[in-house]
């Protein structure tokens, strides 16, 4: 019986993986700044989710649980140095192709605000799922998003006024 429930959970996790992988990688990439590391972070998160699937108690949605694992794995990855062809360098989030407009302002938001913006508008998650993914209250999501909007609005108007 337990095995059957676990297997069903594994199917649900696989379904999430196949349906949501591009979005998960996008958001992970927004945190770690580099595609390959983002993919690895997402995979690392799924390995953890698969291993601990029996521990999922249904408090919140499975998707929110997966998002939380991915966000945590990406945050961990962003704190580790990048190793490329024998060289080491510190990695900070960068907007690689931001040209003008909001992109650099979004990139400059505090991490929590930027994350909520990505989860809301890029991953298209509702407030409840974002709250579960980040381990915060729904009201905190709402307030964080409002703060992000206010920051962006203020900075954008400032940029336009300066121009």
């Amino acid at each position, binding site marked *: 019986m337990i095995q059957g429930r676990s297997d069903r959970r*594994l199917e649900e996790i696989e379904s999430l993986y196949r349906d949501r992988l591009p979005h998960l990688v996008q*958001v992970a990439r927004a945190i770690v700044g580099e595609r390959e590391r983002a993919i690895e972070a997402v995979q690392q998160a799924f390995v953890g989710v698969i291993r601990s699937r029996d521990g999922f108690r249904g408090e919140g949605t499975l998707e929110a649980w997966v998002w939380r694992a991915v966000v945590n794995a990406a945050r961990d990855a962003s704190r580790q140095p990048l190793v490329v062809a024998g060289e080491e360098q510190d990695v900070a989030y960068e907007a690689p192709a931001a040209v003008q407009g909001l992109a650099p302002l979004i990139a400059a938001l505090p991490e929590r605000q930027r994350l909520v913006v990505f989860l809301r508008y890029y991953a298209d998650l509702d407030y409840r799922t974002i709250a579960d993914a980040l381990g915060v209250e729904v009201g905190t999501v709402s307030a964080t998003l409002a703060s992000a909007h206010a920051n962006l609005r203020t900075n954008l108007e400032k940029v336009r006024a300066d121009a």
Partner: protein
Amino acid sequence: MLDVEPLIQNELARLAPYDTDLPDDWGALLARAGINPAASPRRHRIRMLGLALAGLVVAVVFVAPALGLHPPFVDFFSAKHAPKRVVRQFAQLNLGGPRGMNPQAIPGQTRLITTYHLRNGKALPLWVTPTRRGGFCYILGGGGCLAPGARTHTEPGDLNPGVLDVARFSAWHARVIEGTVANQKTAKLELRFANGQTAALPLIWVSKPIDRAFYLYQLTRAQEKSSNRPTALVALDKSGQVLARVTSAFRLPPPWFNPNNVSNKADRRVILRSGPLSIAIAPSRTGGNCSWVRYRAATISSGCAPPRFLTTAMAGGLSHGTGFTSFDAQLKPDVARVVLRFQGGATVTLTPVDGFVLYNIPEASWPRGQRLIAAAAYNSDGEKLASEKFDPLQTGLYDCTKTIPLGAGLRTCP
């Protein structure tokens, strides 16, 4: 108060581009998690072919047998007008492209033709507006503009390319094929699959000035697999005769296209640096090297074209991001040097390394009057093998301290 939500949605794609080329490695993940992939309980649910697009809502429908049109038929000028935010998106379509490529959409004429509903519950409105050139622009998830008679080039396997327009996009974890049909004799639009199955795609005809039919088809999970993938879109008249066919849009990319398929990242080494930019390469199993152009830690572009597949001696161009504008190119082996020419007469000569050149354009060359205007590739005898020109008046290619208004709420660097 400034509404930042639509701006956020527009800008996020720049920050983290949507990646449709991710490895399908569920089995490897299971193995890493200590589960035998062969014992995975996944049951493959092969869904029947066909549309599961529920609740197709057509704004204004006329059955018009007298016109010889197949219902549903939407009278464009009777359809619902677009709200301001959509009108602004169409206005921005006119402004975002290179100079001389303004599609001349008429934003104020934008209409809602229909709303498609995907299986995941997402609603995709189809917005359409005519252009001053006699074509039209549309937004449907993605979208674009078509000029009348724009497509005349025929790829192998295609027939009457001007009749069928095919686009593909992925959004909200749905894979969608959409486009338009120009020939009103089309009685049936058929999507054909590698496994021999077919699906009939519903058409929505729109009256003049659009004068086209639109279609949308959401692939099932099974149809995304290589063995079941779509291979052709065919327009048939009422007697079953083929009016037009597109196969080129469904060809799989060559295996050497994706660095993940043909190279080992562990073999990657940096061969060129210029300012904050670098090019790293790794041997490709199909010949030549895969390359990654990077801005600091972020990969800007990557590819694996073997030199024998290069159609020009110098394949490259300008890249721009916050804080940099650069020129990079992959070269055929006989290119000995690349000369960059700037306004004012300055030149820079680049020597290829492993078939690549890279140049981070210094800030002194960002203002108008100092910009890059041409790149030329020469062999060791001084013979010019290839050249490319750049428009120094193109906006948005170089950072600036003072942006200029483009209109429709957009600003850019001159």
